[in-house]
């Protein structure tokens, strides 16, 4: 691994620590909130929108690890959800949206809906195993429905902050063209 790549790894670590700092500041400024913006996941989704999947996965693992240790009930859940979110954001949605900035909120909305649902259902399954509680899908939906509006709203705000951090304050690397997507477009054009 050459020095430039090591530099990028440190930059990813810096992003995660900045997400953590943002989270702490928000908790200090608004101590009475029921739900806080999920800076760790939003960072993954925003980063994955603009950068290669390899780096996105690395960020997902580190960010997920921090999230698990700081907030998690079960170790590893955030890492897996982070990887899944990074994969969705980087591979599928990046191809669909073509890295156009106006679609970033749409991407955050979609990934928030999917990842939050998976997290709610996973945590309820964990509760079932750990505390011998009965698993009721109805309760999962109630919990999900109750939280999702404020979760998405707060994540939009976090997205703006993460976008500014990643692309303007500490830019990761020069944007590279998505060769795969371009080839596909060219092929479509030819047909």
């Amino acid at each position: 691994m050459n020095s430039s790549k090591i530099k990028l790894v440190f930059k990813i670590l810096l992003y995660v620590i900045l997400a953590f700092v943002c989270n702490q500041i928000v908790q200090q400024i608004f101590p009475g909130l029921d739900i806080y913006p999920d800076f760790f996941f939003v960072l993954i989704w925003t980063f994955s929108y603009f950068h290669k999947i390899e780096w996105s996965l690395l960020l997902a693992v580190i960010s997920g690890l921090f999230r698990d240790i700081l907030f998690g009930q079960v170790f590893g859940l955030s890492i897996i959800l982070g990887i899944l979110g990074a994969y969705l954001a980087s591979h599928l949605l990046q191809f669909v949206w073509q890295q156009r900035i106006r679609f970033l909120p749409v991407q955050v909305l979609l990934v928030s809906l999917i990842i939050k649902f998976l997290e709610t259902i996973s945590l309820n399954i964990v509760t079932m195993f750990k505390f011998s509680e009965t698993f009721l899908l109805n309760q999962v939906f109630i919990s999900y429905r109750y939280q999702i509006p404020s979760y998405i709203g707060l994540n939009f705000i976090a997205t703006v902050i993460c976008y500014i951090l990643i692309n303007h304050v500490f830019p990761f690397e020069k944007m590279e063209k998505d060769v795969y997507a371009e080839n596909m477009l060219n092929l479509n054009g030819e047909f």
Partner: protein
Amino acid sequence: MFKNKRNRYLLIFIVAIIVIILMIFSLIPTSIVNKGSSPISFIVRPIENLINTISVNSKNYFSAIELNKQLTEENKNLTEQNVDLRLQVKENEAAAIEYEKLKNVYNISNKYDYLNFIGARILQKPLGKDLNLYRIDRGLDAGINLSEKSGFPVIDADANVFGRIYNSDALTAKVLPVTSEGFSVSCFISENRGQAFIFKGDVELKQQGLCKIEDVPAESIVNIGDEIYTSGLGGVFPYGLLLGEVVEISPLNSQGTQTILVEPAIDFKTIENVFVLTNDLLPDNLEDPDDESRFREDSSAANENEKIDETVQETATEILSEESEEKEQDVDTDTDASEVNESYGN
């Protein structure tokens, strides 16, 4: 980074397998996976402390300006009250010695035999209603070492139940709040002390910040507004800690029982500091060399207490001397006045 897609997928697969194995292990509260978060705690703790200190200092600065006068006045009053309370404490200590003697005679077991109250600050509040664990700034270093035999209740300054310790690492610990579906404790209702019930959190009710007591028989006397206390059964929570207040009583179900909804006494929005009750004088990690420093801390704390005692005694003497001076002055003025009166009379 990866030469081909196959390598990438292989790596993701390996990472996923490792994470799943760790996940299964982390379901056991005492497993090493839960304690393995210490390195990250070492990284994040200074940042948390810095941000908290800045926040607290700025809040204190602005509030101090406004409250300075008020505090000075209050301080004066409290110092006087403190003298009285110290005297009461001394009386109570004497009574406690008598009680201990009697207790030994009658072999009474005391649920309040907790030796340590560990004060802790909340570092992290939960991100949402699902991830509902609170992180506090005391961990294994303070003797919060979760094992199958030990549990650690967490309360606030007014002895309201906040939750219990979920897991801990070297520097921090996670607290499961009362509203969590994983929380349950034996309790009694203030108007119905003879019966013990199970107070627990609920997936649906936690969204509203409520808890429940199920299977309350129809003949039990329960009213809205009744207070719920820990019963001391189960061995983790001591007797008599306030859990909350009855806010709703459901109609009887087909089995002739009812469910009570309880609003926790703890205010999760404003709470900043909590106390962990530990019943181990010597923690499990005594072999750890850090424990020596713990004892040093204890001895320094004892010295501080002695200093405080001395200061209080000095203050008390000052107050008493001031009072006696005032009285003397009054007596002097009285005598002066009587002398004047006498002279006038003469």
